[in-house]
Every structure is written in C-alpha cells, then in structure tokens.
C-alpha cells in the first residue's frame, strides 16, 4: 500500500511537471530546445530556463502546504484543518510582508514568515483550548478570527504602502510564482526537506493520536512533545511556502482528503503521498494560471481557492 501510494504520487507529479513544462502562454518546442540553433533554439532555452525553476518552486510550495495540512489534520483529529483556514498562512504572510515593509533583507523573509506562522498557530490553538483540549468548533472560529485579523493588517498595509510596496502586498494576498528563480528553489529546498523529514518521522506517533491522546500517551507517546514538534514543523512548512509564493489557500485541505480517500488514513502513507499530490496540484494549477488567459496570468491563490471552496463546502456538509 505504502510503496503503491508513493509510486502513484511520483507518477502524478512527473506527469504534471511534464505537462506544465510544455504548456503556457508561449509554445515551447522540445525539438528546438534539444537541437535548435539560432533564434528558435535561443527562445526555447530561454523559456525552459524560466519554466523549470517555476515548476520546481510550485512543486515545493504545494508539497509543503499539503504536508502541513495533512499533519495538522492528524494532530487535531479534524478533517477541516488547513494552514490557510487556521490562519497560519495569514500569519506567515503578515510576518513576511512586515519584514518587507521594514526593509529587511529578502533572505530573512522565510524566517519572518515562520515566526508569523508559528505565532498564528499558537494564538489559534490558545483560543481554541477548552478544558485542556482543542475544541473542534472553537478551532475553526479561532482560525476565522485570525484570518480576519491578518487580512485586515495586510489590507491596511496595502492602503498605506505606495508603488512597489503595494504591489508586494498584493503578492502576499493572492499568491504568485511569477518570480521564481533557481536561487529561490535552492533556498526553499532545505527548509522543505527539514520540515518534511520531521513530519514524516512523526507519522507513526501521529497514527496513535487517532485513537485519542490519552491512549497515545498510554502507549508510550510523549504527546505534548509530539504536538509541539508537529505544530512547529507545519508552521515552518507553511511559513516558507508563503514566504516564497504568497498565500495559496486550500491546498492543505484538498490534498490530504483526496489522498485519504484513495489510500486510507495511515499517516505513514498519507504524509509523504500528500506531499507528492500537493506538489502535483500546485504545478498543475500554476500551468493553468500561466496558460488560461495568456499573456496575462491568473493569480494562483484565486485559482486554488475557486477549486477549494466548493470542496470545503462539500466536506462541511458531510461532517456530522
């Protein structure tokens, strides 16, 4: 089951990357890319050098968001948990945007986004606590509060910022992969790898959470420590994803559900497969964003939200 699920995920991702490499507002000819001389060859190589890092960034961002969503869902035993809905993405965006407004180096924006994401997760968790446990309804309401607050901050910053700063606020609000570079992919990679490794290593312990925290503790799991690790690792993944691509919502909600429906709820399968399918989803969504109304691009955050909101509604109707 496990290797099967991962093989399917890898296949999907490879297929999505291939298609995404070939489609877009401008036609990319593989023949020209491989053997092209003169202008055609130049154009093809130029396109490839623009598209490849963008696909890489899309895959990493999608993987991070989906994995963070899957881990949060397991930890909170709540199928509606998602970094976007719980306010984590908003906190990350405020952190990164605040750093940009203060004129801090772009190198620090992942750190600022992580701090924002962790603070948001912590605040939401505290708000949702009731008698020592996280209450499902309160959690969603707390996420709602956090999102309203963060979007208010971003909008306020947007209206006082001028010119270039206002443009970057829009980037944080709508999400964009348009300025992907190989350097950004390289900078995101270690964070993604570290966060993913921590969460996948915690998968077996997360499995025990599904039988209840007390039972998990009785089975020898240090539940408080696991909770903290999973919270921090998913905040890190969300934070870096937002720092490099702005807020792209609903990926962390959609993907784990799809994977669970296909492969069951074993976190050891679910977490890595969610990463792969999340990567696939964002790579595909970005290809649509590039190609649909070229030469203008759709904001990718709007695209995933248009896809995610109906699924969210459907989940809500199904949840008892």
């Amino acid at each position, binding site marked *: 089951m496990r290797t099967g699920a991962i093989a399917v995920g890898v296949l999907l991702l490879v297929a999505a990357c291939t298609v995404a490499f070939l489609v877009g507002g401008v036609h990319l000819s593989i023949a020209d890319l491989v053997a092209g001389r003169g202008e055609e060859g130049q154009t093809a190589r130029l396109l490839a050098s623009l598209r490849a890092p963008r696909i890489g960034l899309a895959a990493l961002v999608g993987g991070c968001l989906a994995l963070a969503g899957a881990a949060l869902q397991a930890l909170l035993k709540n199928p509606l948990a998602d970094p976007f809905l719980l306010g984590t993405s908003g906190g990350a965006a405020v952190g990164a945007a605040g750093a940009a407004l203060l004129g801090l180096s772009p190198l620090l924006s992942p750190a600022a986004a992580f701090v924002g994401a962790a603070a948001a997760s912590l605040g939401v968790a505290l708000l949702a606590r009731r008698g020592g446990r996280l209450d499902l309804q309160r959690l969603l309401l707390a996420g709602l509060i956090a999102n309203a607050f963060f979007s208010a901050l971003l909008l306020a910053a947007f209206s006082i910022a001028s010119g*270039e700063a*206002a443009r970057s606020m829009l980037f944080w609000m709508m999400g964009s992969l348009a*300025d992907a570079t190989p350097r950004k992919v390289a900078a995101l990679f270690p964070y993604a790898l570290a966060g993913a490794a921590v969460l996948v290593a915690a998968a077996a312990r997360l499995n025990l959470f599904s039988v209840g925290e007390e039972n998990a503790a009785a089975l020898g799991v240090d539940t408080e420590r696991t909770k903290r690790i999973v919270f921090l690792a998913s905040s890190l993944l969300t934070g870096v994803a937002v720092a490099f691509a702005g807020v792209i919502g609903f990926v962390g909600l959609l993907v784990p559900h799809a994977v669970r429906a296909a492969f069951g709820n074993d976190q050891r399968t679910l977490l890595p497969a969610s990463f792969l399918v999340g990567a696939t989803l964002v790579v595909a969504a970005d290809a649509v964003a590039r190609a649909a109304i070229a*030469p203008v691009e759709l904001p990718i955050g709007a695209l995933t939200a248009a896809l995610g909101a109906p699924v969210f509604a459907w989940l809500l109707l199904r949840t008892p």
Partner: protein
Amino acid sequence: MSVIARQPVLYAIASFSLLVGCRAERAKPADRRSVSSPHRVVALAPNLTEIVFALGAGDSLVGVSEYSDFPDAARRIARVGGLEVDAEKVAALRPDLVLAMAEGTARGAVSMLQAAGLPVAVVPSGSLDAVLSGIRLVGARLGRTEEAERLARDLERRRADVARRVAGRRRPRTLLLVWPDPPQAAGGGTFLNDLLREAGADNLVADRSGWPVLSPEYVATVPVELLVIPDSEQTREAYARAFRSGPLSRGPVTRARVVRLDESALTRPGPRVFDVLEKLAESLS
C-alpha cells in the same frame, strides 16, 4: 509624479471598483451653473489640473490631487489626497466646481461629494478623443468654452499633422510598459494605445483591454522591436533593475529600441500627451 505609472495596480483596482460601483454620471456640458464661471475649483487628478491651467484658469484652483506637479504653480495649491480622495477636505474648500476623472478617481469620494450637493464634473480619459472632449467639457464648465475650443482645435491639428507624417511607415512591434516588474503594459481601450497607434507603432497588446500585467514568459519571448517607457527620477531605478536582472533582461526585448518619455507627460491624459505623440512619432521616423 503620475498616479497611473507609479501605482498601476492601485489604478487598475480603482478603475475596476469604478466599473462595478455606481455608474458615473457624466456632467452636462453647459448647465445653469457655468453662466457665472466658477472661481473655487478642485481638480482630483493631475491631468485635470493641467487642463485647468492650459485653459488659463489656474488661478481658480483651490485644491488639487496629490501628484499635481505641473505646471510649477500647481505645486503651491492645497492637496486633497491622491487615489484616495479626502472628501471632507474637498468639501471644506467650499468648491463651486469639482473635476474628477471617469477612470481612476475614487468613486466613493465622488459620489459623496455629489450627494453633498457639490457640482462635480466627471471627465473621460479612455482615448485621445476622450482627452479632447474632456478639455472641451472642462472648458464649458469653467466658462471658458472659447479657450477650450481653441486648445482642442490646436491639438487636433497637431494630431492630424502627425497622422500625415506617419502614414505609410512601417509600424514597429511595440510594448509600452507603465511599470517594469511585474511588467504592466498599456492595452486596448486606453489613451496610450491611441498614442502608440497614432505615433506609428503597433501595440502588441492592443487586443488586451486596460492595463494588463504581462507574464515573464511572454515578455521574454515576444518579438518586440520598440519599448516605450516612462522616465522619471522615481521610476528610473525600477526600470534599471528590470533591464539588469528582471523581466527585461532576456530575450528579444534586450535588443528592442528603447524610447524614454517624460513620465508625467506620457501617463497623464492631458494636453501634454499630444507633445508626447509628436515626440514619439518623431523618434520613430
């Protein structure tokens, strides 16, 4: 500095909210009020300020928008906000005429002023024809119909001269970027699209209406021959960065001819846009 080129994103949002917001009420060319000409005028956009001065009524201005910096005399007039108009500040100036743009001026403030009973003239700007009829409309409201007619006729004559000069010339494939990164172009249905066409250029994004933000792939591969960009101290650094390492640093665009035009003249739909028309046509010959 120009509102449009400095903040095209805000500009696009403003014009969008205008589209979905209240319907613009076009001012009637000459109603009772203009019998005695207004002497307390507020202009809510820099191009409107320029039109008022060009009609010789600069003395009547008591308030202007944030970026009104031309002619020099405009700098000394009280400011009433940029894209976000401060309606209370405008009202406090007790204007007997408020000039607003059909595109770009905050719609909410304009309807507030109208509801408060202030005489508001909404001036169109979406084409070169609209700029001319805007001048005539402002003239009528200022009680300077003859001056406006003379100015508009003069501009029309110069426009026709340009048309004669560029007739039959080969039209270079052109992009006019009002902002470099992300690259935002002047598309169809804008006065700058008219400007390009009439100056003898072929706007590559004429079939996209408004101010489209172009994808990096498109900008890197489109066979553009001429790049028209606004030039000002405030924008120079951003364009330099885009040419050095941004969207303008790769592909055919690096070999395109670059024509830099004074930002405030280029991006404001006022009388000076016809100077720019002549200049651009001249540099293409």
